[in-house]
């Protein structure tokens, strides 16, 4: 932290900012001026194509590259048999990934990168890749996940929270519960598919390496590239002004990034490597499949006496990754006793990683469906059941929340939705050939924050600059950085120029865990304060300034002017001070990190989600008609980008509920449906109306902005709301996501005996 300085001015209230009406980067994106990693012009680029294994386990016997090497335009074929030797890196969890950069001949999964073909053109590289003749030693693979659940073991290393937890006596409380359920839910393998697949452009100039990479963490890329290649970090610059979506898959540095830099060294010219859509299914991370057993016991009033949530999930044989699906079940509701566990089953599939709300996405899909089952068993309204178990504090850690207004969220969303019109008996509401159902669920996601830095400059032309080595995943980082700088500098947000996505800027953390706004923005007022202090010093020491002779503590700021606190007639613009003083720019460096006091609290974001679904009685196709949601996410920094992120999360939750699954071929371990035609995500016609609001109640105990981050909470809860609506429509409880027409057709309805 910087030393205490005399306050040049009061820090502005960061929780109330003037919003930019449009995305800062919107025009650049819709006009095609925004440059993505593969689009940067570099002199004389070569093109690399990644070749993947076609077996799930074993080792490479030989790669015959004689035909490929002779193909037109080919510059190099790099394989584990001829790749430059790299230093053996030490594992650095959590984001450090086991990448395959041709240092070993082992095969861990089908689709693993095993060769790189570099050619003058992309087409030449692709053609030459088909000429490689690859032979393997293929021992049997560990593939059948459902058949090997008994192989589940605890994670080798503990993450941020322990994998298992126990509070109170669950077995006794369960057996004493008058109403109890014991249900098992499953969720499938999912693969991130942002609009922009991963892409890298690498260029060496002597010992200096510049890498344009589509990423969620430019500084992490820089560290990993330097470490993997064994070069000083100062020799690496990573650049990424725009990321076309990441969803967690771009939070780690994968094989192709290091391989691209390696290839550029081998062919001694810049190399571009675009990961193809089909290559998104394995080499760049996966959400693991989960099997979740949930036991709930409740009293006649619906009060939870016991909560037990046990998760078994697959992990790669290369390294452990825990999708903590049961974490939220520890504190989502109050309960007399609570017990959770997570077990991993090693499988010959690509490395598992963070995917939007890792844990909460799959965890709430199952747990909030189970709560609906409990409500049905209790003959209780599902919303009333939630209210009966409202957690007034973090019961697991016995800490108060920094801020929680979930009751208001339930109230507002249920009113707008018309929840009171719900028919509690499933299968009763019919419109023509359709059964109509209402469902609800609670959304939850943690509030994360890390140390970050920022630079602010006040320019003599009346504008200002703010920069940090963060990234904008399409989420609005540019926009809220501009707003936050404008607020701190008393300028209009349209006067702010933002630079991010360059590792030469001040350090910022990974854009993961919904933490970018909450981490980066708090550093900006600090930097702005330092810049304004320098500006004030210039003014008070300048005989030509109306503020001459005052101290900087006497000066306030308003509308781009320095003003005397005592005599508001004495003022001048920032630009006037700077132009008169040699047209100079003043710069401030700022930093922010979580306060010590944050240990005393728990911070979570909350939401209430209501869904209406129609299910056709003959085709069994479900149709989401509308989703109404209200979120308690602290300050909503920008309405357009914030609501848009929440809506996007809900769309993905619908996908998780109804559509999305990577189908793994049982004998080869290859993803069968590795294209966007066959890997189903919702199209516009699958999403009815989305009515999303935020309470916009600042959580200033969490950070001065009061903003808790909103990137992930939208995907939580909503899948269960849809599933619960399907149950209410049909009386059919499908516990195997996604809920496709065939599963609805084959399920038994609880109402069939009476229908």
């Amino acid at each position, binding site marked *: 932290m910087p030393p205490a300085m005399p306050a040049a001015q009061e820090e502005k209230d960061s929780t109330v900012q003037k919003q930019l009406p449009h995305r800062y980067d919107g025009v650049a994106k819709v006009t095609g001026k925004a440059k993505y990693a593969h689009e940067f012009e570099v002199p004389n680029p070569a093109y690399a194509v990644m070749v*993947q294994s*076609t077996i799930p386990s074993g080792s490479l016997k030989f790669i015959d590259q004689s035909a490929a090497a002779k193909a*037109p335009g080919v510059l190099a074929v790099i394989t584990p048999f001829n790749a430059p030797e790299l230093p053996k890196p030490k594992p650095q969890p959590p984001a450090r990934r086991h990448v395959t950069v041709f240092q070993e001949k082992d095969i861990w999964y*089908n*689709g693993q990168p095993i060769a790189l073909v570099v050619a003058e053109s992309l*087409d030449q590289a*692709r*053609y030459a890749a*088909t000429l490689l003749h690859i032979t393997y030693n293929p021992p049997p693979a560990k593939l059948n996940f459902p058949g090997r659940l008994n192989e589940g073991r605890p994670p080798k290393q503990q993450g941020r929270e322990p994998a298992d937890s126990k509070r109170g006596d669950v077995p006794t409380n369960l057996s004493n519960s008058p109403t109890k359920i014991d249900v098992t839910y499953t969720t499938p393998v999912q693969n991130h598919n942002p609009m922009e697949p991963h892409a890298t452009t690498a260029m060496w100039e002597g010992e200096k390496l510049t890498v344009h990479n589509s990423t969620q963490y430019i500084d992490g890329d820089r560290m990993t590239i330097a470490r993997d290649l064994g070069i000083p970090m100062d020799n690496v610059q990573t650049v990424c002004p725009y990321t076309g979506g990441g969803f967690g898959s771009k939070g780690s540095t994968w094989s192709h990034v290091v391989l691209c830099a390696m290839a550029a060294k081998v062919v001694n010219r810049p190399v571009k490597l675009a990961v193809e859509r*089909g290559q998104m299914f394995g080499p760049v991370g996966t959400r693991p499949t989960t099997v979740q057993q949930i036991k709930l016991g409740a009293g006649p009033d619906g009060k939870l006496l016991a909560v037990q949530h046990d998760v078994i999930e697959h992990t790669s044989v290369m390294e452990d990754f825990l999708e903590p699906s049961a974490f939220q079940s520890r504190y989502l509701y109050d309960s007399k006793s609570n017990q959770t566990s997570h077990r991993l089953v090693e499988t010959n599939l690509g490395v598992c990683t963070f995917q939007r709300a890792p844990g909460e996405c799959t965890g709430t899909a199952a747990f909030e469906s189970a709560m609906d089952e409990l409500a049905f068993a209790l003959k209780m309204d599902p919303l009333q059941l939630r209210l009966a178990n409202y957690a007034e504090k973090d019961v697991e850690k016995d800490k108060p929340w920094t801020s929680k207004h979930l009751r208001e969220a339930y109230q507002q969303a249920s009113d707008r939705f018309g929840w009171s019109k719900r028919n509690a008996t499933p299968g009763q509401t019919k419109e023509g*050939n359709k059964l109509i159902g209402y469902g609800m669920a609670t959304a939850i996601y943690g509030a994360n924050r890390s140390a970050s830095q920022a630079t602010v400059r006040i320019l003599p032309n009346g504008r200002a600059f703010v920069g940090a080595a963060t990234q904008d995943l399409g989420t609005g980082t540019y926009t809220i950085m501009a707003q936050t700088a404008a607020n701190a500098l008393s300028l209009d947000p349209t006067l702010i120029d933002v630079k991010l996505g360059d590792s030469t800027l001040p350090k910022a953390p990974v854009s993961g865990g919904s933490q970018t706004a909450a981490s980066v923005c708090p550093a900006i007022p600090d930097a702005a304060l330092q810049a304004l202090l320098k500006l004030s010093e210039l003014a008070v020491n300048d005989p030509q300034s109306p503020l001459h002779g005052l101290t900087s503590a006497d000066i306030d700021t308003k509308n781009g002017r320095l003003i005397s606190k005592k005599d508001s007639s004495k003022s001048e613009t920032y630009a006037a001070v700077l132009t008169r003083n040699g047209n100079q720019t003043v710069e401030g460096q700022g930093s922010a990190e979580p306060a010590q006091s944050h240990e005393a609290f728990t911070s979570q974001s909350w939401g209430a989600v209501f869904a209406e679904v129609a299910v056709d009685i*003959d*085709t*069994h*196709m479900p*149709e989401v008609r509308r989703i109404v949601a209200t979120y308690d996410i602290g300050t909503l920094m920008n309405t357009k980008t914030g609501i848009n992120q929440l809506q996007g999360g809900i769309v993905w939750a619908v996908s998780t509920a*109804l*559509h999305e699954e990577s*189908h*793994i*071929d*049982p*004998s*080869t371990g*290859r993803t*069968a*449906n*590795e*294209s966007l*035609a*066959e890997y*189903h995500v*919702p*199209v*516009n*016609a*699958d999403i009815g109306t989305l009515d999303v609001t935020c309470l916009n109640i600042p959580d200033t105990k969490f950070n001065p902005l009061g903003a808790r981050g909103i990137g992930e909470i939208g995907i939580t809860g909503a899948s269960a709301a849809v599933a619960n609506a399907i149950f209410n429509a049909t009386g059919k409880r499908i516990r195997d996501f996604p809920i*496709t*027409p*065939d599963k609805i*057709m*084959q399920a038994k309805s609880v109402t069939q005996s009476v229908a």
Partner: protein
Amino acid sequence: MNPFSYQRADTPEAALHAVTADRSAKFLGGGTNLVDLMKYNVEHPTALVDINHLSLSEITPGPNGGLSIGALVRNSDLANHREIVAGYPLLSQALLAGASAQLRNMATTGGNLLQRTRCYYFTDTAFPQCNKRMPGSGCGAIQGFNRIHAILGQTDKGANSPETCIATNPSDMSVAMSALNATVQVQGPKGKRSIPVRDFHRLPGATPQVDTVLRPDELITAVDLPSARFAKNSWYLKVRDRQSYAFALVSVAAGLELDGNTIKSAGFALGGVAHKPWHSPEAEHALIGQPATPDTFRKVADLALRGAKGYEHNEFKIELAKQSIVRALTVAAQGVQA
């Protein structure tokens, strides 16, 4: 993608000459399927003969009061053509149920008839078995992930048999054309011939690599529709995993000609269940002279699915197809337009 040559043909004769000269040449229409398959390294023609400039883009009056659809009429144009919408709503609905607006704008009538299966084991060359892609290699689907596969007319002699194939035809348009009993007009080096669309696609039999009876040196010039009988009472029902841009789990093209509540004639085919649009003459015949009632439709559904065999992941299609048939025929009988 392999290197290939490209040439443009301006007449059917020139196009035919070009493919006859080079046995691994292919015609290029909309390219919406062929170009994908070339990128996947599934198809590797040495030459592409671009036929987009042939004069085959018109819809004209056909023989016996029907319509003749030029082979290059784009799917979007066909679906929205006034006379198609008025006389053959079944075909219009089927086309609009397929692909996406962008793909329909490019895809041609002839190309749609020739589109290849979306069986994962066919489109991904990393899979070691596919009798369609590598004749004799076996079938990866039969013991693999087979949710989208065939339940009728497949060849099932075990995974390692060179004959086994449980792939499905992906087209929606062809299903409607089968129900409408259309005729495919083709031109070859020895002249022209007509092929009923119901005979145009084939079952895998012992040669699953062959999708249709079209010979490599033949060009589709048109599809003729018979005079419109089902304009009032028809329905194309497509059951799929999402509301748009997904291939059919099961689809039903149903057309009825009614005299009061009695079925005078019918056209009826299924999609998503077989190596070709599935037309059961027996099921179709069982509609004739019967009252348009759920009872009749249920009997027809049972007949149409007779002999169906499911696999680990697609067993559901048998029951789903039956329910869909009853629904589609019911809606067709009610005369509700989409």
